[in-house]
């Protein structure tokens, strides 16, 4: 097959520039007034290189799923730009957007909810091929078999319905569907958190293998840091709509700099009784604050063990703290 000429573009397949996604909050029944906004994603700047796995971690409500949906243009942005392959998705026409979707696919958390129960595997995998006019009717069978082979499902299952599969197999189908259009980047929102440990490992291996073999970039969203550390090249930590730390996976998780990342890492239970009992745990007080009225300054300061008065004054920007490692804390230099 002849190679397409490489278009002029940067090394980054995906760039986010100061992306904001806010949801308006309304009050009142008959007379509805806008009273505020949930700042689900509030100024995120990130880039993903070709073939790179970027892990995105944070607690529930930190905006990581909204960020995923924003990247896919499933929710409109309030500000900033999502740039795929050099093209600003916010400015793309419907037709351009359709073309962009070929390069950008998603795998959802719950394989019980993300597959249509009334479609066979074959129909689900063929649908994107028809929608984008990639295959003729005659070629579809071959491509469906190929896709099933890639994710480790026997092609004889093609006529089955989702309820005939286990959770792990369903997630494989969801991955096959995402791969159907040969995308350049996949956004996976908690793809393994609904699965048992032994099945989780199978899906993680599959995703790693696909990224390696197909030069596929992956934005891997999860709340489980040990899973993220295993699969990611780089990790971004989110808190209340903002990235608070970003860097190579080993650096961020083994040598975290931001106090929030430190607390997060120390909260992961270690499956070794000796280590688990000996170590010091940072137990954060309270819950994450509401993204409707975020605290002034650094959003983490009300729960931070190192907070000072000046943490309240301004939102700290991401600052370098090591080779390609950044953290958003004004006390970086002062912390041990």
């Amino acid at each position, binding site marked *: 097959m002849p190679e397409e000429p490489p278009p002029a573009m940067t090394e980054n397949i995906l760039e986010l520039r100061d992306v904001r996604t806010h949801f308006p909050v309304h009050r009142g029944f008959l007379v509805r007034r806008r009273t505020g906004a949930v700042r689900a994603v509030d100024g995120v700047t990130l880039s993903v290189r070709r073939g790179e796995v970027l892990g995105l971690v944070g607690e529930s409500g930190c905006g990581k799923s909204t960020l995923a949906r924003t990247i896919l243009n499933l929710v409109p942005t309030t500000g900033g730009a999502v740039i795929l392959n050099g093209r600003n998705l916010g400015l793309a026409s419907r037709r351009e957007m359709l073309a962009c979707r070929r390069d950008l696919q998603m795998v959802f958390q719950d394989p019980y909810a993300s597959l249509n129960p009334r479609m066979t595997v074959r129909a689900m995998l063929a649908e994107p091929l028809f929608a984008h006019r990639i295959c003729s009717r005659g070629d579809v069978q071959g491509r469906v078999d190929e896709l099933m082979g890639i994710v480790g499902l026997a092609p004889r299952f093609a006529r089955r319905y989702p309820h005939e599969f286990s959770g792990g197999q369903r997630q494989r189908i969801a991955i096959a569907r995402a791969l159907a259009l040969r995308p350049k980047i996949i956004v996976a929102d908690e793809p393994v958190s609904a699965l*048992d*440990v032994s099945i989780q490992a199978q899906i993680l291996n599959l995703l790693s293998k696909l990224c390696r073999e197909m030069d596929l970039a992956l934005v891997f969203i999860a709340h*489980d840091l040990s899973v993220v550390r295993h699969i990611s090249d780089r990790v971004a930590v989110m808190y209340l709509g903002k990235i608070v730390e970003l860097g190579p*996976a080993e650096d961020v998780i083994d040598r975290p700099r931001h106090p929030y990342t430190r607390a*997060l890492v120390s*909260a992961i*239970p270690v499956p070794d009784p000796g280590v688990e009992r000996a170590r010091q745990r940072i137990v954060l007080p309270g819950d994450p604050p509401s993204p409707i009225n975020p605290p002034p300054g650094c959003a983490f300061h009300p729960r931070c063990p190192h907070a000072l008065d000046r943490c309240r004054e301004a939102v700290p920007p991401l600052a370098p703290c090591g080779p390609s490692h950044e953290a958003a804390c004004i006390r970086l230099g002062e912390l041990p």
Partner: protein
Amino acid sequence: MPLLTVTDLRTHFHTTNGVFRAVDGVSFHVERGETLGMVGESGSGKSVTCYTIMGLVPQPPGRIEGGSVVFDGMDLLRCSPKAARSVRGKRVSMIFQDPMTSLNPYLRISEQVMEPLVIHEDASRKEALGRALEMMEAVGINDAARRIHFYPHEFSGGMRQRVMIAMALITRPELLIADEPTTALDVTVQAQILELIRRLQRELGMAVIYVTHDLGVVAGLCDRVQVMYAGRIVEKADAQTLFRSPLHPYTRALQRSIPALQPRGRELFTIPGIPPDVSKPLPGCAFAPRCGFADDACNGAVPELAEAAPGHSHACIRMRAGEIDWDA
């Protein structure tokens, strides 16, 4: 005498699709004040075991086919319903996995936390409210005097789980059954809840059965651990021993498939296949089809749990015969 002794418990579900042997011959005991971890994947029967102890298995389709659950000398499966009720909810209580669906959305938190006292101790509402407030403070809910009158939807997930714990502990039970109480929560909130359970356990001297699929949580919390697979216990030992030197291939496979214990980038160890369908008869060891060490003998008979060293039992015939070398 142990606080709770479960012997050869069998709970099956009779459905139109066959008989599901959710719990199929489970025996264990819990001593006063200790923490027993119950680990297994979904469908291994760990929750059904707890539900049977608490009398929460819907019958039909559930049927308790045999065995006994003896709490402090009383068999909860055979005594009168009235006698069982005086134990369940008072001396043994349970917290559930999902704090979002386990609280009644129509009742104020105060009503729900007071209820066990009103039912079991005939407390007056005023007295019950006072003790409910104390309990809410003990589980770390700030501004409890005001927030006790809130409805569940006004609380976050972590706060609701604290309310559940307050409800479970208000009668000062001797045994707490915690069925994946932190699975639905974030790690930082999980750390708070685990710390809380540890502290209250020390203060009240109660025993805890902690059900989870997370080996990390077990490592930090439990004195003894039992691993379940397809309705049976395949290995039990004290936590240290189970993590350092597991003897059953399933326990070891489970441990090896945790990303945290493996170097980054290396392919993760996986257990091939999926857990068996417990509605089909299993002639031999339920794990044999997925086990890297299985041979023909494994399919011959269901292996019994037997002691390999004091306090350490497993149900693997090949390990017992000395035929398994992990490093080979």
